[in-house]
């Protein structure tokens, strides 16, 4: 056991707590300021000295966002696209992961390397050919263009994540199905899927976050206001009324809610989704 009550020791503990407080200020102050500003009137935002708490607490910025059908459409688009991509990604990745996890076949190793390396392809490199393809197939400014594009970026890591999860499940389970004369397809749906829920949730969380945050392709492959997603909506808000900071902050808070909720409800899966690839 270490000695705990020497003056030097107390000093170190005190210094550590001061450093922790400084770290907290660094990490949380910008977020606090966003929240704080979203409850102010636009004139109060730049009042000097800045007010640490809203002097005249108001929900007018939120009312302005939620009362505007154009902005509600941004939210609908984001939820719809992210939701659709999540369902598709999980299904397709589950099948691929099952193939990787339960079978040995020629080219397995190189396919795995291929999938790992596609994760780091710069989005800007794919943007120009995608733009060319999307325009020539006549799907510019549609949900289909966004969904197909996002699928390419979510799929590789989703496959790795699901494969990692399926590898932790004992093989005896699906082999029992084979002994009973069932096919691998039956084993997948009857045995594997029901016990893969944690893996499926982690993959869904990762996929949803990636789609919710996407900016570059949404910016380039859509054009009409009714097709824009939340990140583009926030940017548009900035262009239209350069000084409506309270509305921009309110929209940012609303746009961050899904991520915050997912984090609070499913912290474990969130962290698994965000870090697994980098730690493995």
């Amino acid at each position, binding site marked *: 056991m270490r000695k705990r009550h020497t003056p030097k020791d107390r000093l170190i503990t005190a210094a550590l707590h001061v450093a922790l407080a400084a770290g907290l200020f660094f990490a949380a102050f910008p977020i606090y300021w966003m929240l704080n500003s979203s409850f102010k009137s636009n004139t109060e935002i730049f009042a000097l000295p*800045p007010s640490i708490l809203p002097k005249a607490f108001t929900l007018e910025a939120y009312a302005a966002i939620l009362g505007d059908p154009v902005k509600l459409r941004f939210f609908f688009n984001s939820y719809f696209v992210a939701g659709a991509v999540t369902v598709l990604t999980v299904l397709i990745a589950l099948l691929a992961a099952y193939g990787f996890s339960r079978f040995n076949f020629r080219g397995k190793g190189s396919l795995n390397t291929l999938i790992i390396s*596609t994760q780091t392809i710069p989005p800007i490199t794919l943007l120009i050919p995608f733009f060319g393809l999307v325009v020539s197939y006549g799907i510019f400014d549609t949900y289909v263009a966004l969904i197909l594009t996002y699928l390419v970026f979510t799929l590789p890591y989703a496959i790795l994540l699901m494969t990692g999860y399926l590898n932790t499940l004992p093989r005896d389970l699906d082999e029992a199905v084979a002994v009973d004369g069932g096919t691998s397809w039956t084993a997948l749906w009857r045995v594997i899927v029901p016990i893969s829920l944690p893996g499926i949730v982690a993959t869904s969380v990762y996929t949803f976050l990636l789609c919710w945050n996407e*900016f570059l392709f949404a910016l380039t492959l859509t054009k009409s206001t009714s097709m824009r997603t939340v990140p583009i909506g926030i940017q548009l808000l900035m262009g239209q009324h350069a000084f409506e900071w309270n509305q921009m902050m309110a929209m940012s808070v609303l746009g961050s809610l899904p991520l915050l909720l997912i984090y609070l409800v499913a912290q474990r899966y969130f962290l698994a989704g965000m870090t697994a690839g980098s730690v493995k």
Partner: protein
Amino acid sequence: MTRQKRSHHKLKRAVAPYLYLSPSLLIIGLLMLLPMVTVIAYSFQNSAVLRRDPSFAGLKHYQAIFDDPVFWASLWHTLYFTCMSVIFHMTIGMVFALMLNSDRINPTLRNILRVLYILPWLFTAVIIAVIWRLLLEPNGVVNSILMQIGIIGSKVEWFSSPETALHAVTFANIWAGYPLFMVSLLAGLQGIPKDFYEAADIDGAKAYQKLIFITIPQLMPIIISISLLDFIWTMQVFPLIWITTGGGPIYSTEVLSTYTYKLAFSSYNLSQASASAVVILLISLGLTLFYIRYQKAR
């Protein structure tokens, strides 16, 4: 089972994995590998995408890019932005992880702080950009605080003066990205066997010696692999810079991604933009190969 049935079963086993993988391979092949070939082809064509029958351009577009001083400036800004980001992500992530891992703070406080320190991670790049624009507005809170303490004498236009803009976007990106390191290093710290520290205590090792000779070497694999990934990803950052400065003022924050984007969608010079995109791809591929080799060697 009859022999025929058994061989039928074997055949099914042999074909099955390819069937399970086929949707993924189709998507990756058609929507990732094919576009990569396409962008390389574009970079050798005149008026790519815009004309139906583009003529062969040879290395003309690459030549144009390498002759463009803005390209070299973008490359330099990308390097500065990326190196500073990775170094500070790692340092801040390490300091926070070590502080949270210390047995001098009580467990409840530790859990609360861990959640709060992760906060920047939960926000989209666009929102981070908007928050920092608000904070760093000439009439904003950061200037107001700095003037009150006396660090600056007059309002600084962080994002719109060429001297500060690159540092300001880099700072915003440092703030946004350290939690990945923090979370991974924290997980790594908890995996270091306690005996190592007990043995060091018996030998009378000081705290900094334990840090240098036990903690850091044990964390090295995580530090290296996350640094590489962070480097690759930070190099590709687009929305943060696009929303805060748009690459300006006077190209002072132009990075490879904004440079390429502007070539393609402001100047509609898609051929030259493709050449620039291929250069970015090659840099990324080089780093990725390095990363995969490192992962395999472990």
